[in-house]
């Protein structure tokens, strides 16, 4: 049967670290063509760019891990940001009240998604496409598709720094940490992954599948709301196009970060962070070397394709069995 192999196999090394290698090469390329790219400033602005999307992607990861999807996160972010901005600048309400109502509202939108997908069992993609349109429509209705700017007092909150680091980077890393703990160290997180493995087995194991899946959508909505706060603070205003196609960027981040669309797979940290940084490196890098924005969509497509291709090859390689004691166990040919 299988001997214990310790020889260094390029194949295994490539699959686990191959991706970081590609990322490194991309960074080297950008730094060569635009020297100022290789600087602390650039690194900070990469994380700064990724901050709102990292938060939204971490919420979306929970839904994807239950083998479903939510393409309305962009519109949830837009509607909650629009209402928050309206409350602050048009109605002059206190800022804390606006922030709280933004979060409550984004949860309610998550509840609506959960209701359509989990209770009425509409196909997740179609249901959240419907809510994507509806939320965008309501947002435009309330703002009459005008630009709603935040008052000067809080407009510059978005790019305050502590030393070289932007506050919203710290905030988003903090949120990612909490989401990672929820994912790996709470029953809710573990049951989300179990549902992603197999819904019928999950129910057999006593998991209240409907309730957990519903709650995953609410969490996803909430994260979209939090992401919206960072997004509007950075830009200082909410425009009719804010949040458009955030969902596809977030999904690209998750895929590159190893969260599989087949559910039950992937991590918040380091997974989502790696995915976010990769996309942000590409966008910022292209910005630094002055390439046109349309090259970015082309390159992003290529990166998703390559990471998917590597992932499909990876599933063919069977990892070794971790053994408690040192005695070799006979690994029979289980499929």
């Amino acid at each position, binding site marked *: 049967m299988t001997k214990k192999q310790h020889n260094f196999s390029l194949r295994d090394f490539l699959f686990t670290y191959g991706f970081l290698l590609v990322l490194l090469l991309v960074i080297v390329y950008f730094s060569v063509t635009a020297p100022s790219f290789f600087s602390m400033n650039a690194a900070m602005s990469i994380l700064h760019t990724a901050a709102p999307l990292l938060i939204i992607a971490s919420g979306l990861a929970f839904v994807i891990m239950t083998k479903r999807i939510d393409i309305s996160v962009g519109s949830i972010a837009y509607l909650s940001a629009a209402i928050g901005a309206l409350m602050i600048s048009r109605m002059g309400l206190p800022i804390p009240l606006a922030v709280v109502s933004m979060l409550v509202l984004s949860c309610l939108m998550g509840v609506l998604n959960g209701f359509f997908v989990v209770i009425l069992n509409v196909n997740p993609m179609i249901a959240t496409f419907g809510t994507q349109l509806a939320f965008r429509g309501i947002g435009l209705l309330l703002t009459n598709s005008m630009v709603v700017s935040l008052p000067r007092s809080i407009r510059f909150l978005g790019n305050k720094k502590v030393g070289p680091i932007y506050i919203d980077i710290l905030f988003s890393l903090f949120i990612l940490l909490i989401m990672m703990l929820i994912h790996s*160290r709470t029953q809710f997180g573990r*049951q989300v992954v179990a549902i992603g493995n197999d819904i019928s087995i999950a129910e057999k194991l006593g998991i209240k599948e409907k309730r957990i899946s519903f709650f995953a959508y609410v969490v996803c909505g909430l994260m979209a709301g939090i992401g919206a706060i960072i997004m509007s603070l950075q830009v200082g205003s909410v425009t009719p196009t804010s949040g458009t196609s955030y969902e596809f960027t977030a999904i690209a981040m998750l895929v590159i970060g190893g969260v599989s669309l087949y559910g039950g797979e992937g991590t918040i940290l380091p997974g989502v962070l790696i995915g976010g940084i990769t996309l942000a490196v590409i966008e910022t890098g292209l910005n630094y070397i002055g390439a046109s924005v349309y090259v970015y969509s082309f390159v992003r497509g290529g990166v998703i394709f390559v990471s998917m291709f590597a992932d499909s090859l990876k599933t063919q390689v069977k*990892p070794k069995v971790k053994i408690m004691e040192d005695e070799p166990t006979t690994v029979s040919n289980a499929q």
Partner: protein
Amino acid sequence: MTIPYLKMDGIAKSFPGVQALKNVTFEASQGEILALVGANGAGKSTLMNVLGGNIEPNSGKIYINGKEVRISSPSDAAANGIAFVHQEMAMLPTMSIADTMYISSFPYKHGLIDYKTIYQRCRVVLKRLGCNFDPRERIRNISPGDQQMVEIGRALLHDPQIIIFDEPTSSLTSREKEHLFEVIRTLKQEGSVIIYISHFLDEVFSLCDRVMVLRNGETAGGGLVSEYTNRDIVKMMIGEKEIDTYYERSEHRAGEEIMRVKGIYRSGVINDISFSLRKGEVVGLWGQLGSGRTEVARALVGLDPIDGGTISIKMGDQMMPVKQSETKKYIGMITENRREEGLLLPMSVCNNMSLANLTNLTKKKPFSSVIDSKLENSETDKYVKRMDIKISSQAQRVETLSGGNQQKVIIGRWLQKNPPIYIMDEPTRGLDVGAKADIRRIISDLAEQGAGILVISSEIEEIMSVSDRYLVMKRGSIVAEFGSNASKEDLVATATGAASKKE
């Protein structure tokens, strides 16, 4: 006799249209393994599901340690120290062993899951079951046998007094089966009540102390295992009249060779498989689970790749080598997992049966790709009658059929195609005794009409009641060949081989 630790008294349960359990009473005491046997639909799993809290009985009482208890949910059962090891294992492939065991009962510390305690407790349970892999290992990386151990481990987590095993050995190799029996014996010594549901009567005799037989929802007798023989139990299971057809086997005249397999191998899976199959002959491919029989079958029809060897099939009057991807035209393959690889559940009986033969059910030349529905319906009727599949209409959805009828639909699919060779992998598994007899009769008829059939089964009586010749496989290669006069002992010994004697 000490008072029985567990007593189920006058249990009755009826589902719409069927009386599943009629007034069943039985007792089991600590430190004893009680075998619960009976044909499919006799009420075994219903009875145990009552004890496990999944089903509410219409009437009857359950006493534990002399006190009456009410069990209305799995958590009630667990609270009363009852653990249920299901047949289909509830495994979560991408998660760790510890997660799978604790998925709905994680212990918390400071608001987070306390993995330190979990791993520590898991190691204790796994050690007790003689497993040496780490609780952090992912389920998809361990063998089905080890997964069965994890399933049992989950049951043992809350140190139950009563443990119900529902056909645990159906996907275990002989080594793993022995390992499981040792664990059950240690649990017996520790004083737990063990209830062991099984089809394999040889297991009942080698493992259990007492046996109880259920037939049509009633107790049909029981007592110490030593007081009964195999035939007695079968008689109780299926009643007087059907006993004789159970063993009768008709002789088949073997014609000339129609398939010759030479040196098929796939590294690490099957190696150097060579045999030949003759017209009108039924060859039993016998061996323990995991010995590579299914892998040989799948290799022959091109479902799994091979690294070398040739397959030649009789065309006209000489043997022509055939590419692995082409063999499908000449071989009808009936796989072991009916629901995943055998049926199109939401589609009609007619569509299911014509699936393999569509290209021949078409209209004349200009419309050669259009299906001739009259022809399709008539072909379906022909084989439905021939195999007497009980259906209300051809358009009935296959998912509404019984297991036996579903298997007949699959066989009917290949009968329509009428290939010279059939491969049947566990054709009678999970069917009731009546359906098993029907399938065996169909196999014999096919052989009589000149088809060459390769049958794989892990039930010794099944394979012996159809095969003319046996090929015994162990660890991926053919180790022995026997004529029709082979005895059960020869087969079991060569299959388990020196291994069973050494341990």
